[in-house]
Protein backbone atom coordinates (compact mmCIF):
# COMPACT_ATOMS: atom_id res chain seq x y z
CA UNK A 1 0.00 0.00 0.00
CA UNK A 2 2.83 2.30 0.87
CA UNK A 3 4.31 1.67 -2.56
CA UNK A 4 1.00 2.47 -4.27
CA UNK A 5 0.54 5.71 -2.35
CA UNK A 6 3.90 6.96 -3.59
CA UNK A 7 3.15 5.96 -7.16
CA UNK A 8 -0.01 8.05 -7.58
CA UNK A 9 1.48 11.43 -6.67
CA UNK A 10 4.33 10.71 -9.07
CA UNK A 11 1.92 10.04 -11.93
CA UNK A 12 -0.11 13.07 -11.01
CA UNK A 13 3.00 15.18 -11.00
CA UNK A 14 3.85 13.94 -14.47
CA UNK A 15 0.41 14.84 -15.81
CA UNK A 16 0.53 18.21 -14.08
CA UNK A 17 3.88 18.90 -15.69
CA UNK A 18 2.50 18.07 -19.12
CA UNK A 19 -0.54 20.26 -18.58
CA UNK A 20 1.54 23.17 -17.34
CA UNK A 21 3.90 22.88 -20.29
CA UNK A 22 0.95 22.87 -22.65
CA UNK A 23 -0.57 25.97 -21.05
CA UNK A 24 2.76 27.76 -21.17
CA UNK A 25 2.96 26.97 -24.86
CA UNK A 26 -0.43 28.61 -25.37
CA UNK A 27 0.50 31.72 -23.42
CA UNK A 28 3.72 32.15 -25.30
CA UNK A 29 1.96 31.95 -28.64
CA UNK A 30 -0.66 34.51 -27.72
CA UNK A 31 1.98 36.90 -26.51
CA UNK A 32 3.97 36.60 -29.72
CA UNK A 33 1.17 38.02 -31.84
CA UNK A 34 0.62 41.71 -32.54
CA UNK A 35 -2.44 42.89 -30.66
CA UNK A 36 -3.34 46.50 -31.47
CA UNK A 37 -3.64 48.98 -28.61
CA UNK A 38 -7.06 49.82 -27.15
CA UNK A 39 -6.42 53.51 -27.80
CA UNK A 40 -3.90 55.12 -30.08
CA UNK A 41 -2.45 57.61 -29.18
CA UNK A 42 -2.34 56.53 -25.53
CA UNK A 43 -4.63 58.33 -23.09
CA UNK A 44 -3.30 57.08 -19.77
CA UNK A 45 -6.92 57.21 -18.53
CA UNK A 46 -8.63 54.23 -16.96
CA UNK A 47 -12.38 53.90 -16.54
CA UNK A 48 -12.92 50.61 -14.68
CA UNK A 49 -16.19 48.99 -15.60
CA UNK A 50 -16.38 50.50 -19.05
CA UNK A 51 -16.53 48.15 -22.05
CA UNK A 52 -13.51 49.36 -23.96
CA UNK A 53 -13.17 46.77 -26.72
CA UNK A 54 -15.18 44.12 -28.57
CA UNK A 55 -13.82 41.24 -30.66
CA UNK A 56 -15.81 39.10 -33.07
CA UNK A 57 -15.05 35.36 -32.97
CA UNK A 58 -16.25 34.04 -36.31
CA UNK A 59 -15.80 31.17 -38.73
CA UNK A 60 -15.54 33.62 -41.65
CA UNK A 61 -13.67 36.85 -40.99
CA UNK A 62 -13.88 38.01 -44.61
CA UNK A 63 -17.64 37.57 -44.83
CA UNK A 64 -18.13 39.35 -41.51
CA UNK A 65 -15.86 42.23 -42.48
CA UNK A 66 -17.67 42.62 -45.78
CA UNK A 67 -20.97 42.85 -43.92
CA UNK A 68 -19.88 45.42 -41.32
CA UNK A 69 -18.17 47.44 -44.00
CA UNK A 70 -21.33 47.56 -46.09
CA UNK A 71 -23.75 48.22 -43.22
CA UNK A 72 -21.74 50.47 -40.89
CA UNK A 73 -19.03 51.83 -43.16
CA UNK A 74 -16.24 50.29 -41.11
CA UNK A 75 -12.80 49.84 -42.59
CA UNK A 76 -10.32 47.13 -41.70
CA UNK A 77 -6.65 46.42 -41.21
CA UNK A 78 -5.45 42.85 -40.96
CA UNK A 79 -2.38 41.68 -39.06
CA UNK A 80 -0.76 38.29 -38.82
CA UNK A 81 1.01 35.71 -40.90
CA UNK A 82 0.16 34.15 -44.23
CA UNK A 83 -2.44 31.79 -42.84
CA UNK A 84 -5.86 33.42 -43.19
CA UNK A 85 -6.99 31.68 -40.03
CA UNK A 86 -4.24 33.22 -37.95
CA UNK A 87 -4.95 36.90 -38.36
CA UNK A 88 -6.27 39.78 -36.31
CA UNK A 89 -8.56 42.06 -38.30
CA UNK A 90 -8.86 45.50 -36.74
CA UNK A 91 -12.16 47.31 -37.31
CA UNK A 92 -12.17 51.10 -37.60
CA UNK A 93 -15.14 53.46 -37.56
CA UNK A 94 -14.24 56.64 -39.40
CA UNK A 95 -10.57 55.91 -38.74
CA UNK A 96 -11.01 55.12 -35.04
CA UNK A 97 -10.13 51.55 -33.94
CA UNK A 98 -13.19 50.11 -32.18
CA UNK A 99 -12.78 46.33 -32.21
CA UNK A 100 -11.46 43.33 -34.03
CA UNK A 101 -12.21 40.00 -35.62
CA UNK A 102 -10.54 36.61 -35.20
CA UNK A 103 -11.08 33.23 -36.81
CA UNK A 104 -12.88 30.69 -34.63
CA UNK A 105 -10.55 27.70 -34.34
CA UNK A 106 -13.55 25.43 -33.74
CA UNK A 107 -14.52 25.92 -37.38
CA UNK A 108 -11.47 24.03 -38.64
CA UNK A 109 -13.52 20.91 -39.20
CA UNK A 110 -15.56 22.75 -41.85
CA UNK A 111 -18.54 23.43 -39.59
CA UNK A 112 -20.39 26.69 -40.01
CA UNK A 113 -20.49 27.98 -36.44
CA UNK A 114 -22.54 30.78 -34.98
CA UNK A 115 -20.27 33.75 -34.31
CA UNK A 116 -20.28 36.01 -31.27
CA UNK A 117 -19.01 39.44 -30.25
CA UNK A 118 -16.99 39.21 -27.02
CA UNK A 119 -16.70 42.39 -24.97
CA UNK A 120 -13.70 43.40 -22.86
CA UNK A 121 -14.30 45.35 -19.66
CA UNK A 122 -11.69 47.72 -18.23
CA UNK A 123 -10.24 46.71 -14.86
CA UNK A 124 -7.10 47.78 -13.05
CA UNK A 125 -6.42 44.62 -11.00
CA UNK A 126 -6.76 41.55 -13.19
CA UNK A 127 -5.43 39.20 -10.54
CA UNK A 128 -8.12 40.17 -8.04
CA UNK A 129 -10.80 40.08 -10.73
CA UNK A 130 -9.73 36.59 -11.83
CA UNK A 131 -9.96 35.39 -8.25
CA UNK A 132 -13.46 36.89 -8.01
CA UNK A 133 -14.49 35.09 -11.22
CA UNK A 134 -13.62 31.66 -9.85
CA UNK A 135 -15.02 32.41 -6.41
CA UNK A 136 -18.25 33.57 -8.03
CA UNK A 137 -18.75 30.38 -10.03
CA UNK A 138 -17.21 31.51 -13.30
CA UNK A 139 -14.43 29.86 -15.29
CA UNK A 140 -11.15 31.11 -16.64
CA UNK A 141 -10.98 30.49 -20.39
CA UNK A 142 -7.62 32.19 -20.81
CA UNK A 143 -5.48 33.24 -17.87
CA UNK A 144 -4.30 36.85 -17.69
CA UNK A 145 -1.42 37.46 -20.09
CA UNK A 146 0.19 40.56 -21.57
CA UNK A 147 -1.11 40.70 -25.13
CA UNK A 148 1.21 42.98 -27.04
CA UNK A 149 0.01 46.56 -27.26
CA UNK A 150 -3.41 45.68 -25.87
CA UNK A 151 -2.24 45.10 -22.33
CA UNK A 152 -2.98 42.47 -19.72
CA UNK A 153 -6.04 40.56 -20.83
CA UNK A 154 -7.99 37.47 -19.79
CA UNK A 155 -11.08 35.66 -21.06
CA UNK A 156 -13.73 34.09 -18.84
CA UNK A 157 -17.13 32.47 -18.72
CA UNK A 158 -19.61 33.73 -16.14
CA UNK A 159 -21.69 31.22 -14.11
CA UNK A 160 -24.14 30.90 -17.02
CA UNK A 161 -21.32 30.17 -19.45
CA UNK A 162 -21.40 33.59 -21.12
CA UNK A 163 -18.01 34.64 -22.49
CA UNK A 164 -16.49 37.99 -21.57
CA UNK A 165 -13.05 39.50 -21.16
CA UNK A 166 -11.23 41.82 -18.81
CA UNK A 167 -8.38 44.10 -19.83
CA UNK A 168 -5.96 46.42 -18.10
CA UNK A 169 -5.18 48.47 -21.18
CA UNK A 170 -1.52 49.25 -21.75
CA UNK A 171 -2.37 52.47 -23.63
CA UNK A 172 -5.24 53.46 -21.36
CA UNK A 173 -8.97 53.56 -22.00
CA UNK A 174 -10.82 55.74 -24.50
CA UNK A 175 -12.01 59.12 -23.20
CA UNK A 176 -15.29 58.65 -21.39
CA UNK A 177 -17.74 59.69 -24.07
CA UNK A 178 -20.70 57.79 -25.45
CA UNK A 179 -20.15 56.24 -28.85
CA UNK A 180 -20.66 58.23 -32.01
CA UNK A 181 -22.64 56.93 -34.97
CA UNK A 182 -21.30 53.53 -36.13
CA UNK A 183 -19.49 52.99 -32.83
CA UNK A 184 -20.40 50.79 -29.83
CA UNK A 185 -23.00 52.51 -27.68
CA UNK A 186 -24.46 50.02 -25.21
CA UNK A 187 -24.30 46.39 -24.13
CA UNK A 188 -26.84 44.07 -22.49
CA UNK A 189 -26.40 40.75 -20.76
CA UNK A 190 -29.33 38.41 -21.31
CA UNK A 191 -29.48 36.24 -18.23
CA UNK A 192 -31.70 33.56 -16.74
CA UNK A 193 -31.05 34.96 -13.26
CA UNK A 194 -30.57 38.72 -13.18
CA UNK A 195 -29.77 38.98 -9.48
CA UNK A 196 -27.23 36.17 -9.56
CA UNK A 197 -25.56 37.66 -12.62
CA UNK A 198 -25.59 41.13 -11.03
CA UNK A 199 -23.93 39.72 -7.92
CA UNK A 200 -21.24 38.08 -10.04
CA UNK A 201 -20.38 41.20 -12.06
CA UNK A 202 -20.52 43.41 -8.97
CA UNK A 203 -17.89 41.18 -7.36
CA UNK A 204 -15.69 40.84 -10.45
CA UNK A 205 -15.80 44.38 -11.86
CA UNK A 206 -17.00 46.42 -8.88
CA UNK A 207 -20.19 47.67 -10.49
CA UNK A 208 -23.05 49.29 -8.66
CA UNK A 209 -26.36 48.01 -9.96
CA UNK A 210 -29.48 50.12 -10.45
CA UNK A 211 -32.83 48.37 -10.94
CA UNK A 212 -34.94 49.25 -13.93
CA UNK A 213 -38.16 47.69 -12.71
CA UNK A 214 -40.18 50.70 -13.83
CA UNK A 215 -39.30 50.15 -17.47
CA UNK A 216 -41.63 47.25 -18.11
CA UNK A 217 -42.33 43.65 -17.23
CA UNK A 218 -38.93 42.35 -18.28
CA UNK A 219 -36.81 42.92 -15.19
CA UNK A 220 -33.24 44.10 -15.21
CA UNK A 221 -30.50 46.26 -13.77
CA UNK A 222 -28.00 48.73 -15.16
CA UNK A 223 -24.33 48.35 -14.39
CA UNK A 224 -22.86 51.59 -13.09
CA UNK A 225 -19.25 52.63 -12.62
CA UNK A 226 -17.69 56.04 -12.33
CA UNK A 227 -21.20 57.51 -12.12
CA UNK A 228 -22.19 56.25 -15.58
CA UNK A 229 -24.27 53.38 -16.86
CA UNK A 230 -21.95 51.00 -18.71
CA UNK A 231 -24.41 48.30 -19.68
CA UNK A 232 -27.27 46.30 -18.28
CA UNK A 233 -28.48 42.87 -17.31
CA UNK A 234 -31.97 41.82 -18.29
CA UNK A 235 -34.01 38.67 -17.91
CA UNK A 236 -34.11 36.54 -21.01
CA UNK A 237 -37.77 35.89 -21.56
CA UNK A 238 -37.63 32.49 -23.17
CA UNK A 239 -35.89 29.21 -22.54
CA UNK A 240 -35.05 29.19 -26.25
CA UNK A 241 -33.00 32.35 -25.82
CA UNK A 242 -29.38 31.77 -24.91
CA UNK A 243 -27.64 33.77 -22.22
CA UNK A 244 -25.26 36.19 -23.91
CA UNK A 245 -23.78 39.63 -23.96
CA UNK A 246 -25.36 41.66 -26.76
CA UNK A 247 -23.51 44.83 -27.80
CA UNK A 248 -25.28 47.72 -29.54
CA UNK A 249 -23.93 49.91 -32.30
CA UNK A 250 -25.24 53.45 -32.55
CA UNK A 251 -26.62 54.25 -35.98
CA UNK A 252 -28.12 57.31 -37.62
CA UNK A 253 -31.23 55.47 -38.84
CA UNK A 254 -32.29 52.08 -37.49
CA UNK A 255 -34.74 51.33 -40.29
CA UNK A 256 -32.22 52.13 -42.99
CA UNK A 257 -29.58 50.05 -41.19
CA UNK A 258 -31.99 47.12 -40.96
CA UNK A 259 -32.62 47.39 -44.68
CA UNK A 260 -28.87 47.42 -45.38
CA UNK A 261 -28.52 44.39 -43.10
CA UNK A 262 -30.71 42.17 -45.25
CA UNK A 263 -29.18 43.54 -48.44
CA UNK A 264 -25.72 42.61 -47.13
CA UNK A 265 -26.70 39.04 -46.25
CA UNK A 266 -27.56 39.51 -42.58
CA UNK A 267 -30.82 38.95 -40.75
CA UNK A 268 -33.10 41.20 -38.73
CA UNK A 269 -33.87 39.29 -35.51
CA UNK A 270 -35.94 42.05 -33.93
CA UNK A 271 -37.65 44.59 -36.16
CA UNK A 272 -37.07 48.27 -35.36
CA UNK A 273 -38.91 49.22 -32.17
CA UNK A 274 -39.47 52.68 -30.72
CA UNK A 275 -38.52 53.21 -27.08
CA UNK A 276 -39.59 56.70 -26.19
CA UNK A 277 -36.97 58.77 -28.00
CA UNK A 278 -34.73 55.91 -29.05
CA UNK A 279 -35.28 53.22 -31.66
CA UNK A 280 -33.65 49.81 -31.41
CA UNK A 281 -33.43 46.61 -33.43
CA UNK A 282 -31.41 43.41 -33.23
CA UNK A 283 -29.66 42.01 -36.27
CA UNK A 284 -27.31 39.13 -37.04
CA UNK A 285 -24.37 39.25 -39.42
CA UNK A 286 -23.99 36.57 -42.11
CA UNK A 287 -21.79 34.50 -39.78
CA UNK A 288 -24.52 34.47 -37.12
CA UNK A 289 -23.22 37.04 -34.62
CA UNK A 290 -26.09 38.98 -33.05
CA UNK A 291 -25.69 42.70 -32.56
CA UNK A 292 -28.08 45.44 -31.50
CA UNK A 293 -28.49 48.72 -33.29
CA UNK A 294 -29.77 51.87 -31.62
CA UNK A 295 -30.74 55.28 -32.90
CA UNK A 296 -30.73 58.08 -30.36
CA UNK A 297 -31.38 61.74 -31.10
CA UNK A 298 -28.45 64.05 -30.58
CA UNK A 299 -30.21 65.77 -27.71
CA UNK A 300 -30.74 62.39 -26.03
CA UNK A 301 -27.10 61.49 -26.34
CA UNK A 302 -25.99 64.81 -24.89
CA UNK A 303 -27.79 65.22 -21.53
Amino acid at each position, binding site marked *: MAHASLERPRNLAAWAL*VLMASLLA*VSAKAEERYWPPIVDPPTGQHHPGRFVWVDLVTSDVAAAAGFYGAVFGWTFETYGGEDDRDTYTLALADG*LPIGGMVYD*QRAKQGKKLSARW*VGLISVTDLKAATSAVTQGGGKVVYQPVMLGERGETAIYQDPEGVVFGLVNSKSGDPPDFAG*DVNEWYWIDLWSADVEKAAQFYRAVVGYETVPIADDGPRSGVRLVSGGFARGGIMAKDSKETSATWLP*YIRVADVKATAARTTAAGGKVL*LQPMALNLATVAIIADPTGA*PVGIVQVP*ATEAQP
Partner: protein
Amino acid sequence: MSKGDDRLLPRLAAVVALAMALDGCASDGGDSSYSGVSTSVSMSMGYGYGGYYGGGYYPGYYPGGYPPLVVVPPRPPGSRPPVNLPERPTTLPETSRPSTRPAPMPSTRPSTVPRPTTRPSFRPAPRPMPMPRPMPMPSRR
Protein backbone atom coordinates in the same frame (compact mmCIF):
# COMPACT_ATOMS: atom_id res chain seq x y z
CA MET B 1 5.30 1.28 -10.32
CA SER B 2 5.77 -0.66 -13.53
CA LYS B 3 8.51 -0.12 -16.06
CA GLY B 4 5.92 1.34 -18.43
CA ASP B 5 4.93 3.91 -15.84
CA ASP B 6 8.55 4.80 -15.25
CA ARG B 7 8.82 5.75 -18.91
CA LEU B 8 5.68 7.88 -18.83
CA LEU B 9 7.26 11.16 -17.86
CA PRO B 10 9.98 11.27 -20.53
CA ARG B 11 7.46 10.14 -23.15
CA LEU B 12 5.00 12.83 -22.19
CA ALA B 13 7.75 15.42 -22.05
CA ALA B 14 8.72 14.44 -25.58
CA VAL B 15 5.11 14.73 -26.70
CA VAL B 16 4.84 18.21 -25.22
CA ALA B 17 8.09 19.28 -26.80
CA LEU B 18 6.86 18.03 -30.16
CA ALA B 19 3.55 19.81 -29.70
CA MET B 20 5.31 23.06 -28.87
CA ALA B 21 7.59 22.69 -31.87
CA LEU B 22 4.68 21.99 -34.20
CA ASP B 23 2.50 24.64 -32.68
CA GLY B 24 3.40 27.37 -35.14
CA CYS B 25 2.71 25.21 -38.16
CA ALA B 26 -0.50 23.45 -37.16
CA SER B 27 -3.10 23.52 -39.89
CA ASP B 28 -6.20 21.68 -41.00
CA GLY B 29 -5.29 18.62 -39.11
CA GLY B 30 -5.60 20.34 -35.75
CA ASP B 31 -7.98 18.37 -33.62
CA SER B 32 -9.75 19.96 -30.71
CA SER B 33 -11.21 16.83 -29.21
CA TYR B 34 -10.74 16.29 -25.53
CA SER B 35 -9.97 12.70 -24.87
CA GLY B 36 -7.51 13.57 -22.16
CA VAL B 37 -4.22 15.38 -22.44
CA SER B 38 -2.85 14.94 -25.94
CA THR B 39 -0.77 16.67 -28.53
CA SER B 40 -3.81 17.72 -30.51
CA VAL B 41 -5.17 19.63 -27.51
CA SER B 42 -2.05 21.64 -26.96
CA MET B 43 -1.71 22.41 -30.66
CA SER B 44 -5.23 23.73 -31.03
CA MET B 45 -4.95 25.67 -27.79
CA GLY B 46 -1.90 27.58 -28.82
CA TYR B 47 -2.72 28.19 -32.40
CA GLY B 48 -3.07 31.78 -33.43
CA TYR B 49 -5.40 34.60 -32.54
CA GLY B 50 -8.57 32.55 -32.70
CA GLY B 51 -7.37 30.09 -30.12
CA TYR B 52 -7.15 32.94 -27.66
CA TYR B 53 -10.91 33.15 -27.35
CA GLY B 54 -11.09 29.61 -26.20
CA GLY B 55 -11.61 27.53 -29.31
CA GLY B 56 -10.48 24.18 -28.04
CA TYR B 57 -9.18 25.53 -24.80
CA TYR B 58 -10.90 23.30 -22.32
CA PRO B 59 -13.65 20.69 -22.30
CA GLY B 60 -17.11 22.11 -22.43
CA TYR B 61 -16.19 25.47 -23.90
CA TYR B 62 -18.88 25.66 -26.57
CA PRO B 63 -17.32 22.79 -28.53
CA GLY B 64 -19.90 23.27 -31.27
CA GLY B 65 -19.54 27.05 -31.42
CA TYR B 66 -21.60 29.72 -29.73
CA PRO B 67 -25.31 29.00 -29.37
CA PRO B 68 -27.41 31.03 -31.77
CA LEU B 69 -29.43 33.87 -30.27
CA VAL B 70 -33.19 33.43 -30.36
CA VAL B 71 -35.09 36.70 -30.09
CA VAL B 72 -38.67 36.61 -28.92
CA PRO B 73 -40.57 39.66 -30.23
CA PRO B 74 -41.75 41.87 -27.36
CA ARG B 75 -45.47 41.92 -26.70
CA PRO B 76 -47.22 45.27 -27.14
CA PRO B 77 -48.71 47.25 -24.23
CA GLY B 78 -51.94 45.83 -22.89
CA SER B 79 -51.34 42.29 -24.07
CA ARG B 80 -49.64 41.20 -20.90
CA PRO B 81 -51.54 42.26 -17.77
CA PRO B 82 -51.20 43.62 -15.22
CA VAL B 83 -48.26 45.79 -16.32
CA ASN B 84 -49.42 47.97 -19.17
CA LEU B 85 -45.99 48.86 -20.52
CA PRO B 86 -44.17 47.68 -23.63
CA GLU B 87 -41.55 45.02 -23.11
CA ARG B 88 -38.18 46.59 -23.54
CA PRO B 89 -35.69 44.51 -25.46
CA THR B 90 -32.79 46.41 -23.90
CA THR B 91 -31.70 48.07 -20.68
CA LEU B 92 -30.51 51.11 -22.61
CA PRO B 93 -31.17 54.24 -20.53
CA GLU B 94 -33.12 57.12 -21.92
CA THR B 95 -31.87 60.24 -20.30
CA SER B 96 -35.23 61.97 -20.58
CA ARG B 97 -36.71 59.48 -18.14
CA PRO B 98 -36.42 60.14 -14.40
CA SER B 99 -35.58 56.49 -13.68
CA THR B 100 -32.22 56.83 -15.35
CA ARG B 101 -31.04 59.70 -13.17
CA PRO B 102 -28.88 57.53 -10.89
CA ALA B 103 -27.05 56.21 -13.94
CA PRO B 104 -26.80 58.65 -16.84
CA MET B 105 -24.94 57.78 -20.00
CA PRO B 106 -21.65 59.49 -20.68
CA SER B 107 -22.13 62.47 -22.97
CA THR B 108 -21.16 62.32 -26.61
CA ARG B 109 -17.81 63.72 -27.60
CA PRO B 110 -18.00 67.55 -27.81
CA SER B 111 -17.04 68.99 -31.16
CA THR B 112 -14.15 70.76 -29.45
CA VAL B 113 -12.56 67.39 -28.60
CA PRO B 114 -11.05 65.87 -31.74
CA ARG B 115 -11.36 62.15 -32.53
CA PRO B 116 -7.94 60.51 -32.61
CA THR B 117 -8.23 59.13 -36.12
CA THR B 118 -4.54 59.54 -36.82
CA ARG B 119 -2.57 56.89 -34.99
CA PRO B 120 1.05 57.83 -34.39
CA SER B 121 2.35 54.69 -32.76
CA PHE B 122 4.38 52.01 -34.46
CA ARG B 123 2.55 48.97 -35.76
CA PRO B 124 3.31 46.23 -38.25
CA ALA B 125 2.33 46.69 -41.86
CA PRO B 126 -1.18 45.33 -42.40
CA ARG B 127 -1.52 42.28 -44.65
CA PRO B 128 -4.35 41.51 -47.10
CA MET B 129 -7.77 40.62 -45.73
CA PRO B 130 -8.40 36.88 -45.20
CA MET B 131 -10.15 35.14 -48.07
CA PRO B 132 -13.79 34.10 -47.67
CA ARG B 133 -14.11 30.57 -46.34
CA PRO B 134 -15.58 28.20 -48.92
CA MET B 135 -18.39 26.08 -47.56
CA PRO B 136 -17.66 22.35 -47.68
CA MET B 137 -19.45 20.53 -50.48
CA PRO B 138 -21.57 17.52 -49.57
CA SER B 139 -19.81 14.34 -50.54
CA ARG B 140 -21.34 12.09 -53.21
CA ARG B 141 -21.71 8.45 -52.48
